[in-house]
């Protein structure tokens, strides 16, 4: 460990730490654009200038390693002047189209301007014109004028995704980011370039123009796109979820996540959700609350024994598995529990970075729970039992991410051979709507609306918390079990209203609105 002083504060850092890392570890603000902890050092934005005692020249913090007793300062007048000018150099050719730029609100240039700038630019000459609204690939749009050439995205495609699509072409202030000859930026991790872009040069097609970021709240959760279980942040407001971004976790996903994982929020929004329970009996079809439907099912399940089968997918939490398995084992009295996996061929697949073939967040948790309860039934037993009719009532839970179950429709047809089918899922599907016979559809809570634990492929347990409520009245599996038993629901799973903190934030927002120009 080395001792050094940052802005007069004595701290200890590991040997080999750069100054900017020391600043970060001690949560002291330092301006920077090109440095990113997950990428190599470029040292080109020249914004992380610091004054080191005994060195007359300002140094960049990202490429200077801390030495014993080093005294570093990034608050001196000299540094502030340098950063102010560094920022001005970034801005002289920047188009300042913040009103139509998606990055506005979370833009590095805006943030640094408020911290170090607040000056009137002296640039009176015409700005450099470059390409705007360049369709870079299926998920990314480029605006070269906004680009500050920090090279983060280029380093990402060179070092992380190793796909080398991006390059900086030309030189000097004519330089532009781009792909060769319009070849699309189509790797599986392309939106990460949007995340790491400190300005609005790269924007995500999916999120583009859908919301201003200051209308969104965020909450941390776990991605349910595959068994890697990337730590993510979801951005939402009362209209639903709008985007997903990765959160750094050195042991799971590092700084990144895949593009497909960012689509997970779409399964959660109202458009793709089952909104209320439906009980179909022959030609009769009745809508009711999920709780009511589950209660009715429970009355028939109790003590029904081995004529009942249960099909589970890996989309639920450990707590939910525990509740439903013990209910089926003890109160229903059946051990016919089957594990439905999405794609047996590529189930063990892995793309080498993050994305796994197992597209369920909690397969490991399900397997562990089934082992614990001594459940060993194989899928082919189910097929047999359905054809022989030894299973009459079949309860199915999931899958939540239907698009990643390529055989979903085939399986629905196969499972509908059961006399009575109870299907619990959060997503709506035409295949389920068209089911005939005795069918009960129960809307489930998505991962964003419940708490629980997911166990990822390495066995790491990660907890999720309820973020927002999208479908009122939807249930978690635990709550379904409560309803099966005919007990009343506890209010514990209800998403709390506005916390005091949030009220406070609203007040601050209003005060800003009403007293503009005074800060």
């Amino acid at each position, binding site marked *: 460990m080395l001792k050094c002083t940052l802005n007069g504060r004595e701290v200890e850092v590991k040997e080999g730490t750069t100054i900017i890392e020391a600043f970060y570890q001690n949560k002291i603000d330092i301006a920077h654009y090109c440095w990113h902890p997950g990428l190599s050092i470029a040292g*080109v934005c020249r914004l992380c200038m610091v004054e080191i005692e005994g060195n007359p020249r*300002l140094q960049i913090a990202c490429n200077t390693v801390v030495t014993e007793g080093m005294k570093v300062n990034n608050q001196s007048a000299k540094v502030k002047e340098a950063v102010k000018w560094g920022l001005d150099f970034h801005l002289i050719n920047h188009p300042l189209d913040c009103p139509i730029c998606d990055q506005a609100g979370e833009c590095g240039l805006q943030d640094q301007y408020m911290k170090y700038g607040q000056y009137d630019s002296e640039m009176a*000459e015409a700005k450099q014109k470059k390409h705007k609204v360049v369709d870079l690939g299926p998920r990314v749009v480029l605006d070269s004028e906004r680009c500050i050439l920090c090279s983060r995205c280029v380093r990402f495609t060179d070092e992380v995704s190793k796909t080398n699509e991006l390059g900086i072409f030309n030189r000097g*202030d004519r*330089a532009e980011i781009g792909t060769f000859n319009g070849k699309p930026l189509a790797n599986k991790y392309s939106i990460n370039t949007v995340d790491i872009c400190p300005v609005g040069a790269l924007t995500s097609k999916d999120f583009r123009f859908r919301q201003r970021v200051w209308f969104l709240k965020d909450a941390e959760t776990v991605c349910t796109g595959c068994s890697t279980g990337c730590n993510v942040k979801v951005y939402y407001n009362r209209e639903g979820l709008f985007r997903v971004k990765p959160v750094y976790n050195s042991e799971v996903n590092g700084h990144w996540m895949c593009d497909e994982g960012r689509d997970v929020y779409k399964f959660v929004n109202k458009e793709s959700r089952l909104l209320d329970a439906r009980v179909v009996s022959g030609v009769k079809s009745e809508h009711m609350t999920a709780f009511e439907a589950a209660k009715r099912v429970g009355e028939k399940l109790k003590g029904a024994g081995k004529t009942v089968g249960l099909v589970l997918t890996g989309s639920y939490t450990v707590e939910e598995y525990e509740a439903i398995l013990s209910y089926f084992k003890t109160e229903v009295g059946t051990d016919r529990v089957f594990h439905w996996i999405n794609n047996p061929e590529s189930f063990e697949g892995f793309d080498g970075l993050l994305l796994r073939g197992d597209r369920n967040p909690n397969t490991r948790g399900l397997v562990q729970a089934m082992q614990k309860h001594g459940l060993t039934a194989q899928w082919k037993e189910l097929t047999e039992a359905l054809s022989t009719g030894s299973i009459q009532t079949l309860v199915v839970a999931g899958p939540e991410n239907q698009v990643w179950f390529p055989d979903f429709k085939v399986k629905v047809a196969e499972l509908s051979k059961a006399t009575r089918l109870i299907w619990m899922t959060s997503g709506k599907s035409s295949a389920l709507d068209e089911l005939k016979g005795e069918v009960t559809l129960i809307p489930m809570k998505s991962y964003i609306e419940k708490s629980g634990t997911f166990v990822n492929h390495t066995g790491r347990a990660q907890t999720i918390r309820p973020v927002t409520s999208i479908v009122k009245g939807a249930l978690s599996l635990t709550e379904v079990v409560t309803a099966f038993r005919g007990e009343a629901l506890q209010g514990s799973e209800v998403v709390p209203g506005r916390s005091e903190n949030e009220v406070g934030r609203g007040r601050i927002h209003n005060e800003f609105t009403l007293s503009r120009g005074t800060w």
Partner: protein
Amino acid sequence: MAESKYLTEHYGKPEYCTLDGYKKLGGYQVLEKALKMQPQQIIDEVKASGLRGRGGAGFATGVKWGFLPNNGEPRYLLCNADESEPGTFKDRLMMERAPHQLIEGMIISAFAIKAKKAYIYIRGEYTGPAAILEKAIAEAKAAGYLGKNILGSGFDLDLDLYIGAGAYICGEETGMISSLEGLKGQPKLKPPFPAVQGYLRKPTIVNNVETLAAVTYIIRDGAAGYRKYGTEKSAGTKLFSISGNVNKPGTYEVPLGYKLMDLINIECGGMKPGRKLKAVVPGGSSAPVITAEECERATLDYECLAQMGTMLGSGAIIVIDDSNCMVDVLSTITHFYHHESCGQCTPCREGTGWMEKIVHGIVHGEGKPGDIDLLLKIADQMKGRTICALSDAAALPVLSFVTKFRDEFEYFIREKKSKVRGGQIYAQMHA
């Protein structure tokens, strides 16, 4: 004191370009002597000679060689023949007139720093010198001066020529290394310095053509012999490229410490008839300009020019007489740096463009009263803010031109025309 032909003794003799001619005139004899020495002896000799890099920065060559780490990694020697500092053309002359002189110097230097692989990085526009060098390298290889076990000493050296493709920044040593690695010629972050991690992250020494050629002479005459020329701190001779408004522009070799005015008046035949000296850019376009009065005091050595706030640089002396508009001259310089900025570091990428736009505005009669101060502010903020020195190189001429010839700039902005030539300058005549 007059011009002293030391390195350039045999220049102009056509046979000096060929291996046989070169050998007849004493070539490759020093190599035989050097290969019998210990590498460290050669480094010590170079250190003792006080030889300083002739490419621009003027860093002591022996000291630079001493930075190489002793970790058994392969080492590289690169010869910087990417001569692109405006005003410099001495290396081209050396490569055209005496390719073997460079090759001999490189073999000795490579032997001293124990490099097994050496490259000459030549700028892409120098197709003539490149052809001459390729031929000379082939000759030297055939004669056993390059390759395995040179002259039975057990020392191997592979020398190859690498051709650039038009980028000033590749004259910067790390930019050159990037270019040699097949990337864009963008300078690399320092530290690590090339002597520790250079070409392919291996220890690399980059020296100018003239520096490497001079090594041969240091070994031939010993450090003391070399020190006969020049001053205490600036030892040896130097080739100066003189261009601009003088009667006989060209390359002249004089000992360091030579008087600038003597070089202009004696060697170069003085100013054009009826013209007066106005200013001199003493070390390539990036060196701050000095006025005619300062020229009287100037001697051509590292210390004197540094004291005057400018630098010896690559030894490119551009003589400007009173028929030139300093605003117009500065406009070509700012255009050059805007065009050549590699675009990596923001202050340089944006600052060079900004300065060019302002100066361009002034010469086109669109200058505004605040422009001069703005130029000074921008230039000041570009100094020392970037990875390489191009930003400084772009800022220094602006600072010096504007401060030393402020009246011309003010006049131009006020009157919207030049103070000299009755306002008849290019930008306004050919708008």
